[in-house]
């Protein structure tokens, strides 16, 4: 597999900056989207290998985008990354390949990304 491309979707610009820096250093190609529309545009363009998706976005729920992604490209892994742990109880979140609670320590998110990319080959 060539350098994997990861799309981060979050309305927190600073977090996108952080992901770009941290995951760039890990050797990933990083794409970012600060809104649902921007994410749809990014997904329609360059192929990505994994999406890290926030749930509570300014203009709507990331869970809606999750359903769209899984309907269009079921094999594209999606990692939900959110500040609120209890979204795991919501039935719609079960579509995701992994669920990570946001933390200043990115280790768990990195592990989830590695695991999901590994499982998809």
């Amino acid at each position: 597999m060539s350098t994997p491309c990861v799309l981060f979707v979050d309305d927190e610009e600073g977090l996108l900056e952080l992901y770009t820096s941290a995951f760039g250093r890990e050797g990933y190609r990083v794409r970012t989207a600060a809104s649902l529309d921007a994410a749809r545009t990014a997904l329609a363009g360059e192929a990505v290998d994994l999406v890290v998706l926030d749930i509570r976005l300014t203009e709507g729920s990331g869970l809606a985008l999750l359903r769209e992604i899984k309907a269009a490209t079921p094999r594209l892994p999606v990692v939900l990354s959110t500040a609120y742990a209890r979204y795991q109880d919501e039935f719609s979140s079960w579509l995701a390949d992994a669920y990570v609670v946001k933390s200043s320590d990115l280790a768990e998110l990195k592990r989830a990304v590695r695991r999901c990319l590994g499982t998809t080959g």
Partner: protein
Amino acid sequence: MPRRSVSAKRPRLQRVPAPLRRPPAPARSTRFRTAHLIATLHRVSEVLETVVEADQAAWAALVALTAGEGLGFNRAFLLLLQGDELRGLFGVGPRSREEAAAVWAEIRQREVRPLERLARPDPLVVEGERVRHADLLARLSHTVANGCAGWRRAFVGRANHPNPCVRHWIGVLDSEALAVLPMMSSEGPWGVVIADNFVTRAPIVPATLEAAQTIVHALRAALERTRLLDSLHEEQRRLVAAEHATTLLETARTLAHDLKNPLALAGGLARELVNAPLPTGDSLFKHLAIIAAAVQRAEERLAQLADGLASQVSKVSLASIEVGQVVGRVAAAFQPLADSRGIRLVFYRPARELVAVAEPSLLERCVENLIGNGLEALREARTPAPVVRVAVFENADEVHVEIADNGPPLPGLLRADPFSGALSGPRSGTGLGLVSVRRLVDAMSGRVEYDEREPGWVRFTVHLRRSG
């Protein structure tokens, strides 16, 4: 305990021991007897149409069946269908001939007229009857079999009755003849009331059986209504809890999003700076600026949250309201419940209007809590002659709402600061209810006090600022 009225003129009763004889009564024509039955039915129907508690409904119906000036049965028992069992739940009347002699003599001597207290029975007596009959009621309980409880019409059962339930009851009660009064609704059987004359051995005549069945129909309707009321209250509690849960859930999500995002960002970038090779000057400056902005955002959001919580109180829109009207409305709403528990709920307000600065719905909730607290305390304590007193009055600066009851005082721990939230013993739920009262009163810029200055009375006084 039901009053006996026994006719000495009736030849078949001449052999009955003196204490068990009915008192002399005028010759009763059929017309008199019919009028008497109708009067009894009318009286008990009125009560059964308004009761809100199952115990009181059962008591009223069984007393009407057994009172001398009622239908005159010696004793009666209520059995309700629970699962596949007809379970004995309530009974009225003596347990033995000896007990009947003693009790009826006392009733005659004291001239007790049970029908006059149907609507407001003494809770002590009601509970006493339940306890007294507990053993017998347990023995009367029977698994439903071979059409038990499926009867549609009243009948008189005897020892040779084909139904096993009837034979079981006759055996347990050692009865010669048993009035079996089924309780049936359109949805199926509810239970049965059984009654007999095991002491006087008076025959159960068709007119009495028919009147008894009418009372039992009214009892079934009353019990159905109390069940419906209970389920409505339960549903209301569930809805309120669900609304609270939804609000809390949304608050939790908002808090997580608004606070955790900037904190995760600041911490994450700080870790990056620690772990990553030293960035260029511009990059370092940019990261530090993002961290500073994130921390500042978290601080601001925290301040907004604190202000938001504090402002919940100031959002209350206070106005000049007539306090007596609001308090009177709440007291009137509690009146049926107080009546059903045999508690006198007395409300006093002066003829003139007493206007204070308050918020009607908050004041209502506050008074509801305090009256409800008094009624609960009195029910649990079984105080003789229980009273809840509600009064509205004024002085130069304030309008006062006083809610007092002659129940037990607050527990020692709670008395030091009744509104602190400490949980109570005898007054169940008092602690949390009083916390709520204080918050409500605070929100109206008033104050609430507790005292036991009047011996035997527990008193809460809400003080509200006078208006105009």
